[in-house]
């Protein structure tokens, strides 16, 4: 099936300095633009910025909440268009653009996700995720041989 098949419910979240610093530390990213405001300003950034693993983690959490138990992420591309800084209200949104039968009772789903602040797109992500087609299925039990993730292009 091609074309938008489902829209994810939007999620609004206000990003704090703690979110940015926690995400950077938990991904072992000690680069100063993720915790030192003065350093970030000297880099011509508007303030400390959320790092790539944290943005990825936010969008993955959003997708996994939609996909439900047993879902497993296979592939993604994150494009960061504008810096994400503290005290910004962010809206996470997404659409399922394609869904087709995968291995072992799973479906492959292609999601286009976005982080938006007002009218400004901060980041986008194209994601391929294995979603159980039945409640008793799980992507985590699939063998390495069967786990052949299709390309982002679908």
């Amino acid at each position, binding site marked *: 099936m091609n074309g938008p098949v489902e829209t994810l419910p939007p999620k609004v979240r206000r990003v704090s300095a703690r979110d940015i610093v926690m995400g950077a530390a938990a*991904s072992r*990213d000690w680069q100063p633009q993720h915790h030192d405001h003065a350093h970030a300003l000297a880099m011509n950034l508007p303030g400390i910025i959320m790092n790539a693993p944290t943005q990825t983690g936010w969008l993955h959490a959003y997708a996994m909440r939609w996909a439900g138990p047993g879902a497993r992420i296979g592939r993604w591309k994150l494009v960061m268009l504008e810096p994400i800084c503290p005290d910004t209200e962010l809206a996470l949104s997404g659409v399922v653009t394609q869904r087709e039968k995968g291995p072992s009772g799973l479906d492959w789903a292609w999601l286009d996700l976005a982080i938006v602040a007002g009218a400004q797109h901060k980041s986008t992500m194209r994601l391929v995720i294995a979603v159980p087609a039945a409640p008793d299925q799980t992507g985590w039990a699939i063998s390495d041989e069967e786990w052949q993730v299709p390309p982002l292009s679908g």
Partner: protein
Amino acid sequence: MAADLPAQVQGLLGQPCFAQVSDGLVEAGAIRLFAAAVQDGTAEYWSEDPAEVCAPPAMLSAWNRPLMWRPGEGGSATGLALHFLLKEQLGLPLAVVTATETELAQPLRPGARVQSEQVLLSVSEPKTNRLGTGRYWTIRVDYRCAATGALFGHETMSFFGYVGDSA
């Protein structure tokens, strides 16, 4: 691809380098800390059963970023040594990540030690944007199980390295 690159940088293109092994094992406490930071309630990240736990895919690169300090080794360790070498050789002291593309081949589970290798794929002509003047470059990193060599996943990261207005 830029034609005006220093010979040292030209020599790096396409050459696997900076093989390293993680300074610790994949472990449940680190997984929970990250899952809490991004508010991800996926059951496999929070399970009390070690056999069920696996790491969030977004943590793929985390295991090969070294600790900032270890006894007897001092500080200032960084991951992705190729990126920092490029900054130095190109005279571009500032840098941001602009995009990442990643595939997960198999889950990372507690007890695994992760090894990685970096390859410079491309360096652009000089560009100017609102951050400053610099270049874009892309690096691919493969992550494998140190014990077996099995591929955990790979990612291609795009950077913009630059000199700011005040630099």
